[in-house]
């Protein structure tokens, strides 16, 4: 049995941020993640926006969620810099089409100012046209927030995990927590990869947060699964908008958003609806509603330019009245068991939430003594496509696998893929999220056989054992002649 002082359950943006924060201290820490890499739950399926939540009508200074999101706003950029994660302050334009819309935003701006958010300003029609030439003619102005940014939440989670590991945290992927039993001074956690004994548990299990808590009767909160839809547009239309642009819905189900990503593609999103947890499906209707709504903002957005679409879940604390509260607290029933669930915007709130969890751990009796040798820096995998010609030349001279382009749409080289595998990618999706191989317009039609071969070679497994996302997700079921010769 593996033993640790603190066990973090969940390797999304929150879990990894907490792991990295804990790695500053002299504490034995382990993190278990049921997927085969970090950030594969809610962290991977959203609009990738770093926001302060002041765009929500429920925004109130007194809510803890508000404080955590707001504190995180100033922490996120330096964090991304330390961890070599893309971060781009694109700014936000909240569009209105009439004076009623303006009035709502005026109220919101006043409320944000009470909370100390003062950067908002109103932009009138002509200036809006200059900032966003493709915006709908009907828009008469916008509330502009220059602080809103975009990042890559999956890469952020991976970076946080890698940096935590550098500083001594034990990371265990592909390990699903199946049961938790309270024992003398701690917990016996049964996972699909064996039992773990620990003294403190941080439950950051994302969409399973309530289920994990229920294993110990520590579920003194209710969360609701809410599903959203995201579609990614081809880079050739990346000029359609320069900022994150959205409009407040005039009727329910009319909300809409379009934003640049850190990779040049735009993404579009939809109103969120209550849905059955785990039903990660997309429907024709979701695509249509999203397009219709987003076309009210930017008429030139076209279904033709969608290269991929997916759905993602958030756990809302209070579905009926909005998303204004979160769960960041020790269980009332079980000492030394801390539940962490932000809902929206979880990624944005991660840095301050991780700090908050340190306070809670102290309250629960954990001694946190700083490590003198904590190293806050982590280097990303070299992004070959971003290098200058001179740098490319030097890198290829050192290792010619960087001159072998495997994914042609995103210009990802064999060198980058091998580095991703060295750092822990062991599935096709792992390689994809760490390097972008397969994320381009051809959606891996070209690079799939090549990436399978590289994974097979580097991990010394058969191409038949290479999976899309772990478990039973093999891509190639048989070898040539296996079926005709009746071996199957």
């Amino acid at each position, binding site marked *: 049995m593996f033993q640790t002082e603190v066990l973090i359950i969940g390797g999304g943006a929150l879990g990894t941020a907490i792991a990295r924060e804990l790695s500053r201290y002299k504490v034995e820490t382990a993190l278990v993640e049921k997927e085969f890499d970090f950030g594969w739950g809610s962290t991977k399926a959203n609009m990738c926006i770093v926001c302060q939540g002041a765009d929500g009508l429920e925004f109130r200074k007194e809510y803890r969620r508000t404080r955590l999101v707001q504190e995180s706003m100033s922490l996120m950029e330096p964090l991304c810099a330390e961890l070599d994660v893309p971060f781009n302050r694109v700014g936000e334009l909240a569009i209105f089409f009439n004076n009623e819309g303006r009035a709502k935003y005026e109220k919101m701006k006043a409320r944000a100012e009470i909370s100390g958010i003062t950067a908002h300003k109103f932009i009138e029609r002509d200036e809006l046209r200059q900032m966003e030439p493709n915006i709908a003619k009907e828009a008469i102005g916008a509330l502009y927030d220059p602080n809103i940014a975009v990042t890559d939440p999956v890469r952020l989670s991976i970076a946080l995990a890698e940096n935590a590991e550098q500083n001594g945290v034990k990371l265990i992927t592909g390990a699903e927590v199946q049961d938790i039993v309270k024992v003398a001074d701690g917990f016996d956690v049964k996972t699909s990869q064996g039992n773990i004994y620990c003294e403190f548990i941080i439950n950051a299990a994302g969409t399973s947060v309530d289920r994990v808590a229920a294993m110990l009767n520590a579920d003194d909160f209710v969360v609701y699964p809410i599903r959203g839809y995201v579609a990614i547009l081809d880079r050739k239309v990346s000029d359609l908008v320069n900022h994150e642009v959205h409009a407040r819905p005039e009727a329910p189900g009319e909300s809409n958003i379009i934003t640049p990503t850190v990779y040049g593609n735009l993404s579009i999103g939809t109103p969120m609806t209550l849905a059955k947890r785990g039903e990660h499906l997309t429907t024709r209707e979701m695509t249509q509603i999203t397009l219709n709504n987003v076309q009210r903002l930017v008429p030139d957005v076209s279904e033709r330019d969608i290269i991929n679409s997916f759905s993602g879940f958030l756990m809302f604390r209070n579905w009926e009245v909005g998303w204004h509260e979160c769960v960041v607290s020790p269980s009332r029933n079980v000492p030394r068991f801390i539940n962490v669930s932000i809902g929206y915007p979880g990624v944005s709130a991660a840095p301050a939430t991780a700090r908050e969890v340190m306070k809670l751990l102290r309250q629960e009796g954990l001694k946190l003594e700083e490590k003198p040798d904590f190293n806050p820096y982590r280097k990303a995998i070299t992004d070959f496509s971003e290098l200058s010609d001179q740098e490319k030349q030097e890198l290829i001279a050192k290792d010619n696998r960087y001159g072998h382009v495997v994914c042609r749409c995103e210009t990802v080289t064999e060198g980058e893929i091998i580095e991703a595998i060295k750092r822990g990618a062991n599935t096709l999706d792992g390689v994809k999220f760490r390097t972008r191989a397969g994320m381009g*317009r051809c959606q891996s*039609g070209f690079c799939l056989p090549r990436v399978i071969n590289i994974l097979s070679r580097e991990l010394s497994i058969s191409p038949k054992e290479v999976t899309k996302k772990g478990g039973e997700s*093999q891509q190639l079921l048989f070898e040539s002649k296996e079926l005709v010769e009746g071996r199957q």
Partner: protein
Amino acid sequence: MKLQDVDVAVIGAGPAGLAAAIKAKESGAQNVIVMERAEQMGGLLHQCVHNGFGLFYFNEDLTGPEYAHRFVEKATDTGINGLLETMVTEITAERQVKAISGEAGCITLKPKAIVLAMGCRERARGALGIPGTRPAGIFTAGTAQRFVNVEGFIPGKKIVILGSGDIGMIMARRLTLEGANVEAVVEILPYTGGLIRNEVQCLHDFEIPLLLRHTVTQIHGEQRIEAVTISEVDNSARPIAGTERKIECDTLLLSVGLIPENELSLMAGVELDPITGGPIVDEMRQTSIPGIFAGGNVVHVHDLVDNVSWESELAGESAARFASGVKEPKGEIRLKAGNNIRYIVPQTISGQNAVTLYIRVEEMEEDVRLQIGDVMNKGLRIVKPSEMLKIELSPEHLKKTKKGTGEIVVKCERRQRQ
């Protein structure tokens, strides 16, 4: 290899690139370079192990690798310089070409002329927006073809194929021969998306169920695909409620269209035709940017490789002439798509040279008359979008064009019965 004083640089060493390079060399270009991202020349023909290639070009029935081999050999004999495992990353309007290779690092060329021969790619699931989950076991037909014919793996044994493009139908037969069960080929249109000969030889001869006017409306399975729901569609291709049927499968192949690969063309500012997805070209296969030519599937998706070779030879020859300083007559007559015509390539002609028109229709129709302005008029028994029409016009034909009209309308209409 001499990377200075390049006369013609050809991007891509598939059938289009090889034909263009050989012809450029034969037409007098001294230094011809082909840049290819794969490990060998010949492009996707290597994975097309079936026959039916070269029936027109060589008057022989060859397999894909055989067809490719003839061109690869000739390219070597003619003294073409091939840069393999070399990825072109940028082309400018001033004809600067940047590329990366493991062997040479970063390469910058300044050729006198460029031929675009990047071919096309398959439409993927994301672009279709098929509803449902995202499990393993969903491939484009061409990727599956590579697994079976090059890598030596069979993706699964219960297969559904969405779309009836040529590669899809060929893979239906191929997988059947490999011992898999193809449960259905599902096509949204009332007719197949590929050649009639493939429908007969690949589906009918192997008794593979072909479901016309149907589409996949849902994908099931969390880790590996477990089933698809298919539905009948109405005349506007919308699924009809109540016709849903679940088919169990472990693999879904997509054969739902090919898209010319023009990201590099766009970087150079080459103007594209929204219908073909490829560059707008004149009869010499020159694009909107002087000195940049294009041939094969990068211009428009062909159904026969023989035509790819011919069209690209034209591009290669024109590029060699451009490199030697010859000025071509400008294409001033526009060819305009009229009734039931999807596109015509080339989009413009000069009216002074013999020219071959490649024409695709919008919809299947029987007993029609194809009219090319007042230049030509031809009765046809049947036209189908998947079967490209090829019309040769001589300078004599073109003399009939009224000078100064600047436009020839091509249309295809049902023949009037007397």
